[in-house]
Every structure is written in C-alpha cells, then in structure tokens.
C-alpha cells in the first residue's frame, strides 16, 4: 500500500474513532430536545410596569407620611393613569420650606411640574433602570426557584439584551402545571398589623365613619374548618405599612402546625428580627396578619415577644407547603409575569416520536442501501460505507458540538441520508460516462471525482446557505434542524468525496492494471 493511501486510512480511522467517542453511548452523549425527551419551554414576559408602579406608590406614600408628620397632610394625592407618576395638591397652608424639603428628600428621581397641583413623573432613565432591574431580578428569582426545584440542565435566559422576555426550558419535567405555578408565584410575603376584622366589607368599615382610613387597606382571607376545607371569607383592615416583608427572610422551610398539618416556618435575618421583635414586644395581645400575595393566610394573636421566626399556616398539602417555602427562600418576583408562549411535550409523546423517527429513518436507509447495491454493484458498497459513516460522523458531531437533537433534526438526518448519496451518484455517473468514452479505469476514477467536485461543492454550499438563514431566524426545534442539515451536508462532502475515493484507491492499489470496474 502506498504511503499516501495509508495516511488517508489513518485519517478516516481517527475521525471515525473520534465520532464514536463523542456519540457512544448515544443515550448519554446525544442531547435530545424537549420535543423528544419531554419537557417544557416557556417564554414569559416580566410586567415591568408593576415595578415602576411599586416605585411610584412607594414615593407617594413617603410624601404623604412626610407631609402628614409635618402637620400638613396633602389635600389630594393620586397616581397618574399611566402609572409612571402621581399628582398631589398640598394643603393650602403648607409652608413652602416644608414642601421643598419633602420634594428634595423624596422626589429626586422624578421630574416635576409645579402649580397648584404638583405632578411628579418618574424620569425616563430612572424608569428604564427600574424596568431593567425588574427583569434581571425576575431572571435571578426564577433561576433560584428552578435550581431549588431541582431540574437537570435547565435553560433560563433573557431574550434579547434589552428585552422584558425570559425564556425557560426545562427538560424532562413531568408536572408542567406545578412548575408553571411555581415560576409565576409572586410570593410576596408581608406581615402587617391588623386593625380589625369582620365577615363583610360593610361591617368592617361601618365603624367609625364608613370610610377607609388613609393609612389602611382591606385584605381578604379564607376561613377554613379543621380539615382544611374553605368555608367562608373574612375581611381584614390592615395597616398599609408592613412590619416585615419577604425581603427580611433568612430562610423558610416546610414544617407542621400544632395539629400536625403541613405549614411553612420561616426565620428572619438580623435586620428583620430587630424590627419584628420590637413590634411584637410592644403589641402583645394584638393581632398581626401574615399576608401572601395580597391574601391573608392567617392572623394570629401575638402571645408574646417573638424575635426571629414565625409560621405560616393554612390549607397546605405537603407539596404546597414545600413549594411555598421554596419560593419564599428564592425570593419574591419584583413584578408579575405573563406567559407569552408555552410548549409542553409529555414524555410519552416524545418517546413515541423518537421510536417512529428512528423506524422511518431505518426503513429509508435500508431502501437507499438496497438500491445502491443493486444499481452500482461493487461501487454501491463504497457509497453505502460512506453513507453509514456519514450517519456515524453526524451523530458524533452532534455529540461534540453539544447540539440538540430535535424531531425536525431527525427529519434533517433522514434527509441528509437522501442527499448524501447524491454526491456519490454524481461521481459514479461521471465515472460511468468517462469509462464509456474509453478511458482506463484509473483515468475514469480520477476524472469522475475531479469533474463532479465543482457540482458537489456548489450544490451543497447553496443548501448550507439556506440552512444558515434557517438557523439565524429559526426557533427551538427548527434551529436543531438547521444545525443537523448544515453539519450533515458538510460531512457528506467528506464521506462521499474522500472516503469513497479512498476505497476506490485501495481497490486500485491491489489491482494496479485493472481493466474493469464494478459500477
């Protein structure tokens, strides 16, 4: 054997070995897409307007408290309909100095228009920063929750650098409803002083004057019987200002209440603990409400001085308590979330797709292999070796690049099987033509490969170009298809031209003066 020929075989051997190394065992090395292994793909939108509104509400409340403390409660105070600012009318007797001080202290991030009414709008760059932070915090919170939930290989990304969208991909999740709830739970925990409680809203506000006090709000909660069934609704009048919130939490975990029912207990960080112990110490005998996402979970009476821990009771299952503890630990979302896109594939459908895709692929491959042997006889073996090698190398490349194999990807592979033989067909037809013109075997093979080459390169490259655009603009599974198609075509150029040629060369080196060729 020639040295040159030997090097060809060494190269082919090395490439094949590498491919097998990267693809074997396939169930470990080949990443299956969500559509094949089952799982959930979510695109969600962080409603950043919520965060902006919260900031505005906060500033509004501070202005009200400040002015009230200085003896000049504002005559009116209202949020703008767009939500990015508010207007207020100071009491007529407010000293200019007091007003200026409050504005200086509290409204640095707002642009003001002053007249009888003062309109404060959040500066656009500040609003933009708030929105950006909301998305980043949202991303972080969701990541924490998913991590704690324990999903292998999750993908959690912001879509676009400036966007308010987040993409979440969770392979192998078998309970999508639960995961969706877990991600979306705002989990905003507040502990607030209870002014009073009543079974209806009217009776709650009847005393003293049928009016909702400025510093309070009405929040509802469910009433449950001993077995956890909801039997009614209770209305609570709560102070607006919280004693502690979810931000003061250090930890939360599932535990049990005194009846052995699942509950969530939490501990506070040092800062929260200071606030909490001061408050509980001073208000023994009063009630405080544990409010989660604007719903009163429970409103226990403060029996004694509590320093740094508490318990949330209520109609929980073991799992419900666990999920709540998880989202509390992971932190609250800074803004609510809307699902824009959801794709869930159950594991059984994915499994079914794999089986059918493989079956279709094998049938297709068998037909092609059979035809090539029948039509090109000896040379058909060349083409088939090249074809099977093509499939192995393609899987190896998918494993090496950690590309994801999707259902359209399998279709792409099956299609490259069809197209990979094309190069060999081109070459073989050309060799036949040259033989017919009376060329020697040696010459015909050389010319066949040489002349078919430009057609092979041009035709494959045009298809690869369309695969590139497909990759650029495609989503999820389509990207997988584009990747397998592009890789497959590149590999087919190697196998059809180089590998198939090497087999011919090996044949020729054994029979140097060959006059016939089985083709």
């Amino acid at each position, binding site marked *: 054997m020639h040295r040159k020929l030997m090097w060809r075989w060494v190269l082919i051997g090395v490439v094949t070995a590498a491919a097998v190394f990267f693809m074997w065992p396939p169930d470990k090395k080949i990443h299956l897409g969500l*559509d094949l292994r*089952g799982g959930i793909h979510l695109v969600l939108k962080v409603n950043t307007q919520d965060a902006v509104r919260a900031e505005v509400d906060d500033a509004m409340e501070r202005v009200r408290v400040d002015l009230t403390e200085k003896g000049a409660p504002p005559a009116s105070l209202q949020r703008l309909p767009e939500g990015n600012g508010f207007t207020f009318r100071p009491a007529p007797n407010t000293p200019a100095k007091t007003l200026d001080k409050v504005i200086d202290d509290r409204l640095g991030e707002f642009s003001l228009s002053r007249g009888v009414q003062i309109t404060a709008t959040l500066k656009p760059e500040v609003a933009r920063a708030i929105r950006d932070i909301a998305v980043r915090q949202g991303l972080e919170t969701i990541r924490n929750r998913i991590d704690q939930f324990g999903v292998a290989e999750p993908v959690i990304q912001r879509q676009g650098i400036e966007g308010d969208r987040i993409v979440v991909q969770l392979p192998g999740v078998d*309970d999508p*409803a*639960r995961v*969706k709830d877990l991600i979306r739970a705002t989990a905003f925990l507040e502990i607030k002083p209870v002014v009073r409680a009543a079974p209806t809203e009217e009776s709650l506000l009847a005393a003293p004057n049928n009016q909702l006090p400025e510093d309070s709000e009405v929040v509802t909660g469910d009433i449950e019987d001993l077995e956890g069934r909801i039997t009614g609704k209770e209305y609570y009048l709560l102070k607006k200002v919280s004693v502690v919130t979810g931000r003061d939490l250090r930890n939360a975990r*599932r535990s049990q209440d005194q009846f052995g029912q699942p509950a969530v207990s939490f501990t506070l960080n040092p800062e929260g603990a200071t606030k909490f112990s001061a408050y509980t110490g001073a208000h023994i005998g009063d009630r405080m409400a544990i409010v989660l996402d604007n719903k009163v979970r429970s409103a226990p009476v403060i029996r004694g001085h509590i320093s740094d821990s508490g318990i949330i009771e209520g109609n929980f*299952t*073991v*799992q419900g308590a666990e999920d709540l503890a998880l989202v509390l630990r992971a932190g609250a979302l800074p803004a609510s979330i*809307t*699902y*824009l*896109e*959801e*794709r*869930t594939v*159950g594991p*059984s459908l994915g*499994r079914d*797709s794999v089986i*059918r*895709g493989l079956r*279709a692929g094998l*049938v*297709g491959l068998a*037909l*092609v292999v059979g*035809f090539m042997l029948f*039509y090109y006889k000896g040379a058909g073996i060349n083409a088939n070796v090249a074809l099977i090698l093509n499939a192995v190398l393609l899987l190896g490349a998918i494993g090496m690049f950690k590309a994801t194999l999707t*259902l*359209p990807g399998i279709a*792409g592979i*099956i*299609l490259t099987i*069809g*197209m990979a033989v*094309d190069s060999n*067909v081109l070459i073989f*037809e050309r060799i036949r*033509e040259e033989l017919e013109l009376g060329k020697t075997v040696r010459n015909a093979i050389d010319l066949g490969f040489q*002349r078919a080459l*430009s*057609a092979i390169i*041009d*035709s*494959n*490259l*045009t298809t690869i*170009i*369309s695969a*590139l*655009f*497909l990759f*650029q603009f*495609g*989503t999820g599974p*389509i990207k997988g*298809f584009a990747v397998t*198609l592009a890789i497959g075509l590149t590999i087919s150029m190697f196998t059809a031209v180089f590998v198939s040629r090497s087999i011919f060369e090996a044949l020729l080196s054994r029979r140097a003066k060959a006059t016939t060729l089985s083709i």
Partner: protein
Amino acid sequence: MRFFHNTHIQFMKYRWHWIAISTALNLIALGLIFFGPGFKYGVDFAGGSQLTVKFKSDPDAARLRRSLENLNLGAVTIQRFDEPERHELLIRLQSAGQEGDFSARMITALDKEFNAQTASTRLNLQGVQAVRDELVQADPDSVGGTVEDRRAHYEPMASGLLKLRKEMGILNGPADLDRVKELSSNAKRYLADNARFGEFSILAADSVGPAVGKDLRTKASYAVGFSLLGMLVYIWVRFKFQYGVGAIVALVHDTLIALGVLSLTGREIDIPTIAALLTLVGYSVNDTVIIFDRIRERIKLERGKPLIDVMNSAINQTLSRTVITSGLTELVVIALFLFGGDVINTFSFVLLFGIVVGTYSSIYIASPITLGVSNWLEKRKQSRRRR
C-alpha cells in the same frame, strides 16, 4: 443496469409549453391563497392554545366542544391526531388576541367535564413528585417517621407508576397498577380506592400569544426571503447573473405551488411547515445547480454552440443522476411520511410532492428562464453597441 442512458430528449424545445403550464399552476396557487381557502395557520403563527389529549375511549365531541366553549376564550376546533385506535385528539382554542396561559384553563375545564370524581391524586395528570407526596401523606404502608423517610419509601413506587404512564400514554384503570412491580400491595389498594385515573391524559400543550405569533411570522418570512437572496448572490458569484435569476424563479415557482397545495389540502402552516418549505427550496436549488454546473462545463468545451443546445445536452447528461437522486430522496421521504408519525406528517407531506415539483422545475423552469434572460441581456448588449 442504467436508467436514462444516452438520452437525447429535447427538453428545451417545448419550453414555452412548460412555462405556460407552470404559470397556470402558479396562478391557480395564487388564486387559492388569495381568493380561495387561503391558509390555515397553526398555533405558531395564529396564536392560541392547542392540547394533544389522549382519551381512554373516544369522547363525546359535542360535550367536549361545549365544555371548552363555555370558557368564552375563543373558537374551538377538534381534530383527530394519529390513528383512530389511539383515541388522541388535537384540541385548538383560537383566542382572540389575548395573552395568557389558556392551556391550563382548558385542562381544568376538561377535567371538570370528564372527570366527575374529584380527588387529590390524579394519576394521569400529575408528576412523580405529586404522586409520591400523596402517598407520603396517606402512608398506606404505615412507614411513619419523618416526611423524608416516607418519601424514600414511596419514591420508587411513584417513579414506576409514571414510567408505565410514559410507555402507555395513559393509565386506564386500577388493573394497570398490577403492572407496576414497585408498588406495595397496600399502596396498590390505596391508589385503586382513592386515586383517580380520569378519562384523559395530556400528551402536549402549546400556547402561543399574539405577540410571539407575530414575531414568529416575521422571522419566518425573513428566513425565507434572506435564504432566497443568499442563494441568488451565491449563484450569481459562482455562475452568472442570469443563472441566479433562473434558479430563483424556479424556487419561487416551487414555493408557490407548495403553498397552493397546502391551501388546497387545508393543512396547517406552522414552524415545521416553514422548515419543510426551506428544505424543499434547498433541495430544488441543489438539483438546479448540478445542471448549471454541467452547462458551465459544456460551454467551455463547446465554444460557439448555441446556449439552447448546450443546455439540452447538459440536462440529458445529468438526467440519470437527477432521476436517481430524486427517486432515492423520495423513497426516504415516503418512509418518513408513512412511518414518521403525525408530528412530522405535514413536514414529510410538503417534501413528498415538493421533490417532484423541485426536480421538474430544475429541468423545465430554471434553464429556460436562464436562457430567456441570457438572450435578453445579449440583445440589449447588441442594441447598445449599434447605437
């Protein structure tokens, strides 16, 4: 053995006939698209929610429809998915321009309608952890201890059960519990008595809001537009401008006919369909380029021969390759169409006739158009010279 050996078919002779037929086909396709049935967009582009549901037995369609229409979220369409004996349905809800998580509400509505019995353990709708925790709470084996101890005990049982569901698609009833060897007899009895199997399981759920739907539409048209442009430029550079035009006209021809067939058959257009169209485009251009390559080669060898004759012999010389490759790819696509399952059925359907159309257009459209443009350019050059 050789097919199409040494043929001398006058492909170019009747080029006007073929161009006329193709123009007519394209006009019909445009008519179907704009004045006929138009396109049926899938959830990807139209927005809305779609559930793939497996029922134990075929449900009452009217009841199914009513339960979902009562949600007042939009129009409901129900169609069969896959073979009838699998009792699988595709249920679509076309929500009118709203964002939101409608698939969850659809599942709840179906649950209420078809599963009269309420239960906290719903074996066909919950995951491993939920089933495990239900067993942990009930503790049929009286393991006692901490929640963690009980979890360790019941976890394999729940996994075994869910593995069976994964294989079967739906658990039919208590009899299926016997097939889960991990289940202890007490757990089996507990689940048979207390857990609910229900009438259906969810195989897939897709929800696409209008914002994302719009995005996807834009992206899809960019993908198609740019890949056509990219190929035009490539062929222009590697061959000549007129070849690029010929190839692109052939591709637009193929795409239009494919879209017309999709419109006619009422198949849904979604992302995989777009992928199929692009594959078809790639495939067809592949064919065209190989014929062009041969024309390029022949022009160099036979200087002075009229382009029309060169084209004719080039098409004849590549004919055997064209037929063999198309035939083989068609074989593979037929396998895909017959055995690939419903998920990729539209994909293989597009390629099934697309390959035939693509092969036809490479021969009868791409070269004649190139010839026409070539002659036109030539005439213009001459008249300029005269002036």
